[in-house]
């Protein structure tokens, strides 16, 4: 928490880092104010991002002013030595402020630690180390030297004995962090590389569908153009002339669509940001690589989609064509049929995929967490209170809060659901011949478990009535299982060696609950009594009285914790944030599915129109001979519908395989029901029927005399 004491502006902060002097240069921080060379070169210096400076100092010049960090009784003033331009929104690292790294060493020293740990300790995992390599250096080369390094400096005999771990160092390219890094304690919630590849794949699918349509329609029209080709050849055109002509046609078409797509792209950029819930990402520049790929795709598409029809068309023999006996070849017909099938397989897979993504998200959102997170207002606990004073302030605060009629209860803890737990240690059963297992610690007060309705599988909750509960712990079922207990009940009253040395007594085992979203497995947890936990206060409130409760809570808060900001969130909302990316993925997926089937339908529309056109005479004859409208309808749609049926059956295994592998990312997932494909198939089928009918109905009601006259 930082305070501008002069104006009494205080905010809790969590996007600030200790950073050494080199980082200004390495991250290319653009200092609007201050000297980049000296900004972080000595203890107690702080530099702020432009928006942070504005938050604390408004329009005043922040340079040279003081911000204070309070933690317990400890008061730490920083001098603002610089203000830098905000990082762009798509940065993998958000830094609202940076404090000179030497401050940390000074703090530790004043805290009584003279071992210079901030410069020497290997066991602190809370640091991000950035290494800038010389141009042209392969990072794998450096990485290959790291095991020898770690063995020499970190994994000493002593280290291994006390910590029961072996440390490894790894490098990851900065540009890979956002999409592919998956470590604990990431600086920001990362993107999902798999989802990006997935969407990329779908985009490729869609453009392929469009190319397929072009090839399909171009070759279908070949009958019509055969005569033109015949005449041109008779007049002396060479095949190469004709190929060039047809390629030019496709190039012109592609250029027109390219221009249209660029216009649409820029028009949709803003709405799309809104749709995906991002603010203003339009600022970032597209790289040269992007444009290279873009134009390669364009050129490749033009060539590919133009080449086949060009070769087919230019290959016609004039004699055959001009005699009028020309028909579409059966191999061309087969190609067109397979292309339709591919389009509809893709469409059905995408529709089914959309349904499955939505189902999975719904499933995760509606599945019971195993704890009651509804109607829970979470306050971020005070940071400025000394440990010795804590209970004497907290207890009256608690009493005051509970006096409000809309508050049911209040509990304190080190973390709440939806929070990734970083506090871990190894535990084992004393005497047991097993290696320690890693348990995730949750510190709670006496009210936490009942307040959240967390079920006890065996044993009891902590209680102030038991004087011995300082040394008591509660496990969750997964922890009990991992420690080798036969069941929950048999773990109760057993001893546990926690963190290597601390012998504790297991007083209870809770049923498993989801600390994190359902994407994640439930970690083995150890719940320890910490009546002084002040990270979060969870307050259960009556429905419908949220606003007034917040107002009165704020008053109470300011009475007891005047130096700390009143900072709250609703737990169900913050827990739901974990599904934001999935919901978004579902939305984008849905849009793509819609696009795919739309384009596929354009193709189908074109082909069926063409088919009808070609068969006009036949339809006329059949009608003269007494064919009914229905029989014509069946005649004209049968072939298409057959193809679409084939697509449906192909789509099932393809879609099942793809979506099953997508679901693998989720620890708790739905089973794909057969009905999903039935539904997706029906949708595609109906859309296809409607598309075909538009053309076919026209032909069906046409007066046969007219069609015979066209002969």
């Amino acid at each position, binding site marked *: 928490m930082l305070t501008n004491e002069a104006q009494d502006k205080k905010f809790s902060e969590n996007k600030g880092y200790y950073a050494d002097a080199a980082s200004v240069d390495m991250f290319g921080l653009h200092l609007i104010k201050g000297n980049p060379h000296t900004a972080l070169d000595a203890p107690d210096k702080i530099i702020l991002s432009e928006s942070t400076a504005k938050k604390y100092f408004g329009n005043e010049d922040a340079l040279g002013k003081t911000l204070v960090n309070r933690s317990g009784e400890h008061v730490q003033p920083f001098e603002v030595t610089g203000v830098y331009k905000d990082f762009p929104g798509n940065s993998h690292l958000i830094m609202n402020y940076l404090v000179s790294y030497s401050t940390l060493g000074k703090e530790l020293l004043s805290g009584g630690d003279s071992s210079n740990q901030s410069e020497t300790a290997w066991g602190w995992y809370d640091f991000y180390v950035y290494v800038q390599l010389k141009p042209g250096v392969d990072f794998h080369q450096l990485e290959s030297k790291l095991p020898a390094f770690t063995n020499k400096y970190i994994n000493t005999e002593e280290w291994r004995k006390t910590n029961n771990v072996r440390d490894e160092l790894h490098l990851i390219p900065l540009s890979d962090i956002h999409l592919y890094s998956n470590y604990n304690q990431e600086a920001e919630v990362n993107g999902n590389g798999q989802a990006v590849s997935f969407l990329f794949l779908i985009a490729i699918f869609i453009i392929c569908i469009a190319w397929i349509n072009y090839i399909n329609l171009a070759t279908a029209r070949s009958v019509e153009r055969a005569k033109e080709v015949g005449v041109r050849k008779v007049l002396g055109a060479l095949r190469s002339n004709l190929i060039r002509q047809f390629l030019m046609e496709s190039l012109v078409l592609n250029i027109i669509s390219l221009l249209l797509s660029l216009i649409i792209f820029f028009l949709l950029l803003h709405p799309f940001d809104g749709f995906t819930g991002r603010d203003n990402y339009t600022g970032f520049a597209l790289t040269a690589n992007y444009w290279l790929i873009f134009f390669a795709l364009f050129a490749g598409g033009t060539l590919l989609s133009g080449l086949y029809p060009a070769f087919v068309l230019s290959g016609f023999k004039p004699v055959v064509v001009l005699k009028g006996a020309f028909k579409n070849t059966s191999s061309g017909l087969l190609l067109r049929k397979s292309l339709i099938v591919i389009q509809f397989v893709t469409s059905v897979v995408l529709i089914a995929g959309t349904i499955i993504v939505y189902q999975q998200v719904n499933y995760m959102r509606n599945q019971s967490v195993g704890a009651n997170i509804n109607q829970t207002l979470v306050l971020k606990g005070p940071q400025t209170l000394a440990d010795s004073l804590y209970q004497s302030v907290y207890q009256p605060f608690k009493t005051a809060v509970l006096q409000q009629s809309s508050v049911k209860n209040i509990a304190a803890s080190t973390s709440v659901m939806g929070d990734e737990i970083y506090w871990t240690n190894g535990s084992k059963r004393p005497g047991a011949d097993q290696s320690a297992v890693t348990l995730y610690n949750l510190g709670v007060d006496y009210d936490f478990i009942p307040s959240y309705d967390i079920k006890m599988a065996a044993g009891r909750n902590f209680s102030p009535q038991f004087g011995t509960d300082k040394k008591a712990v509660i496990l969750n079922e997964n922890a009990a299982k991992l420690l080798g207990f036969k069941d929950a009940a048999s773990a109760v009253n057993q001893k546990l060696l926690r963190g290597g040395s601390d012998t504790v007594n297991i007083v209870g085992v809770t049923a498993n609950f989801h600390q994190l979203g359902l994407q994640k497995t439930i970690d083995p947890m150890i719940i320890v009594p910490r009546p002084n936990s002040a990270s979060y206060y969870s307050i259960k409130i009556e429905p419908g009285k949220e606003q007034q409760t917040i107002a009165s809570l704020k008053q109470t808060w300011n009475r007891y914790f005047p130096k700390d900001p009143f900072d709250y969130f609703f737990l169900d909302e913050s827990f739901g944030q974990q599904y934001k990316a999935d919901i978004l993925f579902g939305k984008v997926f849905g849009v793509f599915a819609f696009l795919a089937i739309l384009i596929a339908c354009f193709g189908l529309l074109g082909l069926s129109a063409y088919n009808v056109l070609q068969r006009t005479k036949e339809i006329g004859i059949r009608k003269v*001979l007494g064919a009914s409208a229905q029989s014509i309808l069946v005649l004209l749609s049968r072939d298409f519908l057959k193809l679409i049926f084939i697509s449906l059956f192909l789509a099932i295994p393809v879609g099942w395989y793809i979506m099953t592998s997508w679901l693998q990312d989720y620890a708790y997932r739905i089973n794909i029901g057969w009905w999903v494909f039935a539904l997706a198939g029906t949708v595609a089928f109906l859309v296809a029927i409607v598309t075909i009918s538009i053309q076919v109905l026209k032909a069906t009601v046409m007066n046969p005399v007219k069609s015979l006259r066209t002969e």
Partner: protein
Amino acid sequence: MIKITELEKVYRTEEVETVALNKLSIEVKEGEFVAVMGPSGCGKSTLLNILGLLDDPDAGSFMFNGIEVAKFNERKRADLRKHNIGFVFQSFNLIDELTVFENVELPLIYTGMKAPDRKKRVEEVLDKVQIMHRRNHYPQQLSGGQQQRVAVARAVVNKPKLILADEPTGNLDSHNGNEVMELLTELNEQGTTIVMVTHSEHDSRYSHRIIRMLDGQSVTENILI
């Protein structure tokens, strides 16, 4: 069998109105063989289309077997047509994708005849027009005369009472043309009524009566027998 009185048909396009039939009155008796002649554009095909219930008149009366059919809807016309009328066109109008056999079989399918009966019937007719040996060929593989004989076979396969032929020999040489004309005469002798449009005086001599048209009206009638 056919009695039309004061029949009118007007074609309207955006720019022009063409009066194709202008108060035309004609009667054709059962068992007759009538030839319709006249200059190009005088409305012969239009007349034939209306007689064949492919098109409806704008005004006038059309009695078919004593029933007023001028105001019949599409469905009723189709029903009447497929049981009573066969067509032969100048350009044959066979379906290229179907074999000779399948082309001739088509009307029987639409009247709902069973497959074994159809086969028997089609073979009978193909035999009669002497094209049996080409039954599995496609139209493109036949000469014009052969194609027209298939078309005639298709026209008579469900034993219609009336055959309407629009320049059936127009695309044929005289040898093939005579063959088709003899076929029609034979059918007429067996009781089928025939109305045939033709430009050929030679062909018209196969008929009993010639109706001469000009500008949508009947001008003279020559009775030949």
